[in-house]
């Protein structure tokens, strides 16, 4: 299953993992975050699934958006979350997210999709 929003591409594969990837130079706002959660929830049929989220092309994420991704609504949609952070900015956002926002669901940062998938499948 594949869907797209203005900033994110969503793929829900047969492995029951939701893959999200942002388009280049994405600035994530609270509205984008909420829309992303809504689309994701519809795709996983409201059953918490693992998420592999590639943040590499994100250049900024607002405080409200980070709070939303760390909060209960997102935790109800995803059982665990692997964040792929391959650029300096995405690594910083990822570290901020883990350190300051403290997401409710298990969340880890990875440099490669393979490592992230391995952890999600554990």
């Amino acid at each position, binding site marked *: 299953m594949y869907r797209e929003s203005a900033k994110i591409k969503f793929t829900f594969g047969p492995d029951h993992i939701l893959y999200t990837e942002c388009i280049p*130079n994405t600035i994530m706002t609270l509205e984008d975050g909420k829309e992303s959660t809504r689309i994701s929830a519809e795709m996983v049929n409201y059953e918490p699934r693992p998420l592999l989220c590639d943040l590499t*092309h994100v*250049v*900024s994420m607002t*405080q409200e958006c980070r709070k939303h991704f760390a909060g209960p609504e997102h935790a109800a949609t995803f059982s665990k979350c692997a964040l792929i952070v391959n*650029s*300096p*900015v*995405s*690594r*910083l*956002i990822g570290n*901020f997210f883990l350190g*300051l926002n403290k997401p409710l669901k298990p969340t880890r940062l990875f440099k490669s999709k393979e490592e992230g998938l391995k952890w999600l499948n554990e």
Partner: protein
Amino acid sequence: MIGRVAALDFSKTLSISDKNDMIDAIGLGLNMLSEELNTNVVERSKLDTVNSKLEKFAYTTAHDLRSPLNSITGLVTLLELTINPEENSEVHQYVVRLKKTTEQMKNLVQGILEYSIADTSSIEKQEIDLNEVFKEVIEIDQLSDCAIIKIENTLPKVVFNRSTMDQIIRNLLSNAIKYSDKKNCEITIRAKEADDHVLISICDNGPGIAKENQEKIFELFNKIDNESKIDSHGIGLATVKSVLEAVGEKIWVESTLNEGATFCFTLKKEKQGKGTLSGQSK
């Protein structure tokens, strides 16, 4: 930008390019830190306002309750004198219970009042001799009648507010006696001087405090044993902690269950004449 943030001005943000390189990451990091700091400062300010309102409310309520409670005490005494009930009669027992309940309520209100003003930052401090403070509290409260109290070494002089120190010592000594489960309650007071502070410890031979309760006992209205018949409102230790922390001091308990407890608190070594209890000059 860092200068502005240091001055708690969070209006300035750095512009970020779309290169997604290390410079962008540093700029974005500073912007995000500034944003988080701003949120914390605003939330802290709101909490301070709410706390201040709550403290005022607690003080006013407790203060205003004292007057009718004193009237009730007087009226109960008058009632007792008027009806002059026979000892051990049902009426006599009711009057005794009424007096005891009123007294408990007065203690509770007094405790709330003391707690609500515990954070007062403008209390005058003076040089006080801890030996004298302990001696006076023990004498005035007649604590020697209920416990064997030993001061192990000569206690130092400190600069602190006298009545607050009385309050701290009175609370800690009376707690040791109140909760004692031994025929002879034994209390040992010690002082140990470190570089910049004095450590005072009050050690008892009571029932001790389980590890999981050693922080809870300092929380307001927290009574570890709700079934306990000991007359306690869970305010005393919270007040002691509050007054000590208000001036940057610490209090904690070291204890093993059934092996007594040692309450320790720190007092800074200070020279006299530095102003108020909080260190602010008047």
